[in-house]
């Protein structure tokens, strides 16, 4: 995070907007930590990013939400709750800010009456889908080689863990052999496979990759959402 003392806050001026727009048009989105310096802005990178994503991005739609958009928003909100970025992702040209503001301004009061309409629709729905209860499982992800640098220490809610051999699993305990179970099963099912191996483990290949790894930009803002929120949605 940029030093907060001296950084400008509050409303963006037209000059600032132009500087930010020119910078993103020249360098593209991303690497927001470089944008204030490149653009000559006395702003923190988060402010630059939000200004671009919510106001300056060329494909942003202005004007009132259409009936279709509102209908879709209601359905998505029912599924996803107040996860505005996911909802906005399904409404082309709309920002998460727009969706949140629209919902909080217009929909909170209306949504109750909409549910009544929904009940009427539901009764008339001949192809009513079958809703069955089942457990939702969250597998623990693991990798079988070194952890990517950009994940180390960056995610409080990271679901990534190291290789675990504590519990007995159907996958071979040895990290080097986990994929053999997959291939063995393939033979059992007589899947056609000519066993062509078209890549050797060329050292040069891996060395090249390692070089790229060390140069990965580790500085980045996470947009991760809390898992507990999501789990509550699923269980509620």
């Amino acid at each position, binding site marked *: 995070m940029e030093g907060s003392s001296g950084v400008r806050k509050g409303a963006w001026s037209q000059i600032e907007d132009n500087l930010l727009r020119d910078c993103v048009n020249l360098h593209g989105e*991303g690497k927001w930590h470089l944008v204030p310096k490149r653009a000559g802005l006395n702003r923190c990178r988060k402010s630059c990013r939000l200004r671009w994503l919510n106001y300056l991005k060329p494909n942003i739609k202005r004007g009132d939400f259409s009936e*279709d958009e509102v209908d879709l928003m209601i*359905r998505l909100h029912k*599924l*996803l709750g107040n996860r505005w970025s*996911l909802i906005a992702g*399904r409404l*082309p040209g709309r920002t998460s800010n727009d969706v949140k503001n629209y919902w909080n301004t217009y929909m909170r009061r209306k949504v109750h009456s909409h549910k009544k309409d929904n009940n009427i629709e*539901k009764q008339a729905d001949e*192809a*009513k*889908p*079958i*809703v*069955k209860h*089942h457990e*939702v*499982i*969250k*597998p*623990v*992800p*693991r*990798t*079988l*080689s*070194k952890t*990517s640098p*950009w*994940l180390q220490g960056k995610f409080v809610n990271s*679901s*990534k863990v190291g290789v*675990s051999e504590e519990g007995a*699993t*159907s*996958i071979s305990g040895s990290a080097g052999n986990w*994929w053999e*179970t*997959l*291939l063995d*099963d393939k033979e059992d*099912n007589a*899947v*056609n*496979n*000519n066993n*062509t*191996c*078209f*890549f*050797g483990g*060329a050292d*040069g*290949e891996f060395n090249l*990759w390692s070089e790229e790894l060390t140069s990965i930009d580790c500085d*980045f803002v996470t*947009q991760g959402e809390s898992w507990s929120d*999501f789990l509550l949605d*699923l*269980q509620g």
Partner: protein
Amino acid sequence: MENSTQESHLRSENSVSYESPYPIYGMSFSPSHPHRLALGSFIEEYTNRVDILSFHPDTLSLTPNPSLSFDHPYPPTKLMFHPRKPPSSSSDLLATSGDYLRLWEVRDNSVEAVSLFNNSKTSEFCAPLTSFDWNDIDPNRIATSSIDTTCTIWDIERTLVETQLIAHDKEVYDIAWGEARVFASVSADGSVRIFDLRDKEHSTIIYESPHPDTPLLRLAWNKQDLRYMATILMDSNKVVILDIRSPTTPVAELERHRGSVNAIAWAPHSSTHICSAGDDTQALIWDLPTLASPTGIDPVCMYSAGCEINQLQWSAVQPEWIAIAFANKMQLLKV
């Protein structure tokens, strides 16, 4: 212009075109009716269509069958025919994804809605589905991927959820079976993960995109050699080839497209050929070498469409034909 000495162009006499009344995206070849294709429209509204076409290789023509056209809510994100010929029946089963996973019976002169699948516990709506894959070893299973970060395994006959997994940290964009109980998926979180239904408590990350906020959009598992997969990154001209035995390090990155790659498909009959298509209007066929080349890999075949290619399918029944979709057009290319 490409400098590859191996390069050859697909000529117009080896292609068949069909112009649809609307933009198209979803496509599927039927395994049980060799000359049948399904096309899904891509209209950004509720009302969309699925059309069934007949392909005539002798006259190089494609004809729609109006009695087999049907309404579909929202653009279908994926279309797929049943991977096997149904016993003692002339009808075909077609699955579509979108607001729900739906199953349709394609008969000789009509299409009937068979099943609608909902995995939501608390709502009459299902979280929007981004893609699905029909298990060709155990066709009673379909796996779907969703923007709600989950993957769901469906029991088709009983129209029930067999398993639902919170597979990723963000939206899941594509899913592919490797074999009867193993599938993989790609996500906006930038990872490729493999899941084994015999061990639902774990998944294995075999690749993460080099830039932390770059989603992975599509995944193709090489059915001729299950050690290899291909994936593409958002707004990238690369096709990343992965070996599941060497996690996190791609064995190759194919970088000859001059725009974003939108679709990839392994050859159904060769373990070393893969086709890719993208915003540079090109469909490229690559023959992957056994040793990594220091100068990068060049495609062996190139085709230029008139505009951005959005979708690509390589027919398993007639592997000499590849279907591409761009704007309102679908083209079959002979390779």
